[in-house]
């Protein structure tokens, strides 16, 4: 089933934008509802590329749904601890450290203010340009660039601090 097959992919996309895990689940399901409601608009393309096109189409819907949700909440920052139960347990020891590192990086993104977080995700991870980001967030391209710059500065600072802390522990 399409829903079960792409649920994880969609949730991981939304979770980069939405702070709380349960809220991200709700937004993901909202996104799937939109996806199936307007499924007639999806054009599969050649059979070899159908899955790629479908994933790109689904990702776009999920991002738009997440952005709409953030704008509905007026981009007010959220806080609160992340319970350990939302993270997957990685059995392989070799990959475990890598996955822990990735988990920390995602948490750094989530701790950014919603506007910085959205711009960073849209530009760096999801590949939108500043004009497209400006249209999606109803801001100017200049504001988008300054938000990205600010987000990068904060993330660099956080990475340096966490690297220092790791070195001290070792």
């Amino acid at each position, binding site marked *: 089933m399409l829903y079960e097959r792409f649920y994880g992919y969609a949730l991981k996309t939304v979770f980069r934008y939405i702070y709380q895990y349960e809220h991200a689940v709700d937004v993901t399901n909202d996104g799937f509802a939109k996806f199936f409601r307007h499924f007639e608009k999806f054009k599969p393309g050649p059979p070899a590329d159908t899955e790629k096109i479908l994933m790109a189409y689904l990702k776009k819907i999920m991002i738009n749904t997440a952005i709409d949700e953030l704008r509905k909440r007026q981009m007010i920052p959220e806080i609160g601890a992340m319970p350990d139960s939302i993270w997957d347990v990685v059995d392989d020891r070799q990959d475990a450290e890598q996955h822990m590192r990735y988990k920390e990086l995602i948490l750094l993104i989530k701790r950014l203010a919603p506007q910085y977080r959205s711009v960073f*995700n849209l530009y760096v991870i999801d590949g939108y340009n500043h004009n497209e980001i400006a249209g999606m967030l109803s801001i100017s391209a200049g504001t988008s660039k300054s938000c990205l710059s600010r987000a990068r500065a904060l993330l660099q600072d956080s990475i340096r601090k966490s690297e220092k802390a790791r070195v001290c522990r070792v």
Partner: protein
Amino acid sequence: MPGIDDYMDELFQKAASDYPLKTSGANWSKVSGKLKPVTKARKKPVFSGYRLLAAASVAGAVVLFGLLWYNQPAPVSEQEELASSFKRDSSADKRAPELAKTDLNKKIEGGMDAAKTPNHDAGKHGNYPAGLKAPAPAQKPVVSLAAATIRHPSQKHSGQEAGPQKKQNNTSESDSVHHEAVVLIAASGRKRGDLAEKENTKEPAPSQTFAGHSPAVYYGFAIGPQLSQVKQQGVTKPGFSAGLVLGVNMKKRVAIETGLHFSQKSYLSGGEYFYPKPGAMPDGMHVLSLDGTSSYLEIPLNIKYNLSGKPNTLYLTSGLSSYLMIRERNNYKAEMNGTQTQMRSSYREMNPYTAADLNIGVGYQHSVGKSSIRVEPFVQIPLRGTGVGSLKVLNTGLQVIINTKGQQRQERKKDNY
């Protein structure tokens, strides 16, 4: 620095695709429920959901309290109460007893004449309240006057039955006759002879109609609005509490109550009263103020004391409440890294708080058939803080409780006159 930026970008792109998030919670039913025809969004009505419930509770409590206060009977003497209770028993549901005035007087006079001699048969028909004795034979009877004061209008001439009738067997008719006799004797205020077989037996006084010495379990439902505040900093939107009540009547006037309520409290506070646990807030964040809403399951344990033994009475309650927090949502105004900002948080962890509040209430209960309706203003004084910031929230509110009377009704039926 482009080099570092490119490195960072690549690092975050890898992290975004491979980070270990749990994704096993796919639930198709949540999506299928949303796949309904899209309708135009309706404007949220002003009174919706909790607001309507809170408004209805307040309005209902005010109306109910007003009706109860308006209909509250004036204090009466014991003799008048005996007479009126006889009237209620004999003419309940607008029924008229079959006895006409003349028949009534004849029977009573006959009973009183027979009472001149000891060991009268009248004593066989029932037990008389303590202290009541047969009238002295030489004394002038005032039956007709007493009868006139308690006569039911429908008994006047025709002795017609008024309204639908309940079947009365011979035993109950003779019981009612002797009940009438006792009432008249009591109303006349004369010295009474001893008509009871067990003259030394202490019978409960008529006013002790609802003496329940064995534990009686009762249950009911409670609902009402409440206002919450922290350290007298003002109130925000009202919350509410609704749930089940379970009680046990331990003695005549004392009961122990518990229950399970769902409570929602809204509050606001300055940051100086907000004490977050370590790790609950980001480093460097200083809360300036907050407003929030919390949802709880509340388990109260109270002692209820009736100020009188009557079914309609004022009462006091006091006890403790424990909570299981279901959800907490706070909007913060905070200072972080030198800048003021607004932040929002939502917590869904189920945290227990044992004996968190001291409950004090004063209420009025009114008997309605097999049930009682109670209106009870209350205050809950916090003994410990609750929530992520250990806020001590003071609650005041009004409860409307409808509950059964338990086994008291059966014990009342056993009382004989």
